């Protein structure tokens, strides 16, 4: 057995798919989803946290390359070597993971000659966080490709792999190393399933909101993606409006630097002038560069010329490159370049007609339209128009958060379950049906 390689000293690792497979039936979103779940296999049981980023400084850069691609491990066409990853360290390529673009990368394929991307990705990410090859046949770190490993949401690492990664990073809080003392059987429940309503070995997350019955504290377009914030959590949608996960992510684990006691945010927007991301809560605001807070924050919102009392909504309108703040029935128009409020503000009613007089939040979207959110509904104002489109308001849960009307209705009245698929009144273990739905979502 090779000696234990280096490990990451930090616990928050960023990742990014830099290049995608060229001739693969797998779409980009599917590739990203499979990478997400392959990393999650490791982060579920260790204190490591993985965050997808858009920039070029990701710790784990993922590429699909052919033949010689400027590292010591050239690929060799179909078969042979299929992927590799670099161990942790300070060097530039540490953590980087390369897949042979000449392989037939698939997911859930019945073709015996295809290469299951999820299975290979788990193995390679094991290297990327410090594991070397082992001889144990049941280990995911065995060097030979042994076929698909099953559903990403129900995959549990073999015991020897769990022990080896725990030796490097320790056990994630909420995971009991003795909970599964032996090699899991195929089909065994995932090691760290999402908490169910009535049984879980992880700490209860009673404050986790449900996306289908929530109205949101804040909504923002950040780096082209949509973020829906509620309490201490947020949901994220890709540029093509695919929900990254049905389960919300914790704000503090992604947006690093917000105070841990912060239990919600009031408004969020991406500043057009420098693409910093601004979070508002009460009389204070924070400025983020990517996912890290900048030094010197929080600052008082009076920096913007806003009065005490906070804001309900904030968004940057691409049409005139101005930032709008809303509080109760007043709004302000802010010039980011001049760094001052435009004269005549606050004003009693915003320039858009047909939207509610008070807002939860608003955002500009890549279709050119502005979207205004209030309660469980949203209004769309087409590019450069000043009146909400006639068919609005519509359901935010249905149109953005992958919910069905029936589900939203049933859950609002306390019924559990993914009602659109399997309405079962009184069923408490909702994660099963929801997980099943989630797989469909991420591979579509």
């Amino acid at each position: 057995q090779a000696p234990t390689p280096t490990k990451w000293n930090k616990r928050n690792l960023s990742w990014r798919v830099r290049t995608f497979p060229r001739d693969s039936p797998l779409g980009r979103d599917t590739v990203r989803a499979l990478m997400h779940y392959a990393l999650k296999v490791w982060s579920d049981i260790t204190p490591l946290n993985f965050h997808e980023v858009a920039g070029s400084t990701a710790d784990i850069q993922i590429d699909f390359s052919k033949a010689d691609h400027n590292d010591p491990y050239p690929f060799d066409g179909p078969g042979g070597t299929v992927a590799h990853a670099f161990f942790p360290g300070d060097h530039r390529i540490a953590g980087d993971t390369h897949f042979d673009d000449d392989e037939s990368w698939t997911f859930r394929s019945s073709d015996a000659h295809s290469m299951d991307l999820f299975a290979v990705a788990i193995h390679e990410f094991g290297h990327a966080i410090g594991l070397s090859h082992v001889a144990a046949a049941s280990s995911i770190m065995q060097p030979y490709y042994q076929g698909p490993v099953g559903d990403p949401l129900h995959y549990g690492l073999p015991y020897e792999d769990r022990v080896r990664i725990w030796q490097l990073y320790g056990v994630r809080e909420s995971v009991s190393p003795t909970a599964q003392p032996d090699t899991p059987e195929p089909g065994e429940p995932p090691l760290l399933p999402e908490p169910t309503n009535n049984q879980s070995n992880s700490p209860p997350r009673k404050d986790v909101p449900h996306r289908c019955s929530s109205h949101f504290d804040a909504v923002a377009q950040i780096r082209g993606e949509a973020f829906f914030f509620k309490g201490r959590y947020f949901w994220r949608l890709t540029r093509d409006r695919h929900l990254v996960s049905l389960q919300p992510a914790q704000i503090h684990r992604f947006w690093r630097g917000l105070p841990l006691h912060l239990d919600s945010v009031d408004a969020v927007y991406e500043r057009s002038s420098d693409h910093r991301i601004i979070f508002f809560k009460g009389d204070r605001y924070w400025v983020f560069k990517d996912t890290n807070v900048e030094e010197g924050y929080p600052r008082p919102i009076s920096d913007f010329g806003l009065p005490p009392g906070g804001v309900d909504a904030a968004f940057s309108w691409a049409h005139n490159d101005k930032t709008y703040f809303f509080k109760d029935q007043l709004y302000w128009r802010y010039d980011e370049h001049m760094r001052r409020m435009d004269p005549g503000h606050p004003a009693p009613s915003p320039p858009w007609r047909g939207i509610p007089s008070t807002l939860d939040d608003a955002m500009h979207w890549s279709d050119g339209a502005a979207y205004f959110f209030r309660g469980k509904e949203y209004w769309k104002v087409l590019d450069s128009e000043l009146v909400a489109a006639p068919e609005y308001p519509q359901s935010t849960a249905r149109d953005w958060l992958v919910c069905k009307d029936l589900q939203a209705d049933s859950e609002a009245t306390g019924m559990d379950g993914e009602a659109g698929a399997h309405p079962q009144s009184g069923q408490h273990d909702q994660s099963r049906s929801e997980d099943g739905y989630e797989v469909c979502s991420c591979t579509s």
Partner: protein
Amino acid sequence: APALRAEDLSLGVDWLSRFGYLPPADPETGQLQTQEELSKAIATMQRFGGLEATGILDEATLELMKTPRCSLPDLSPAVRARRRR
């Protein structure tokens, strides 16, 4: 055992070097390895791959060498040196 074909031996030596079972080929002597060293490397590879450790480059071993796999070596130079000591 049936006589090994030259290309199989070549493939085997190349494979064993690539994945850490044999030291990289000496640029001055090419890929010459002693029979004992080669046999030990094959046995280690067989053990690692779940085969019977015969030290002989047989069909099963060649088949395993053709199995799709990760590019990273199974043994690092440090481990190999320790084993030799």
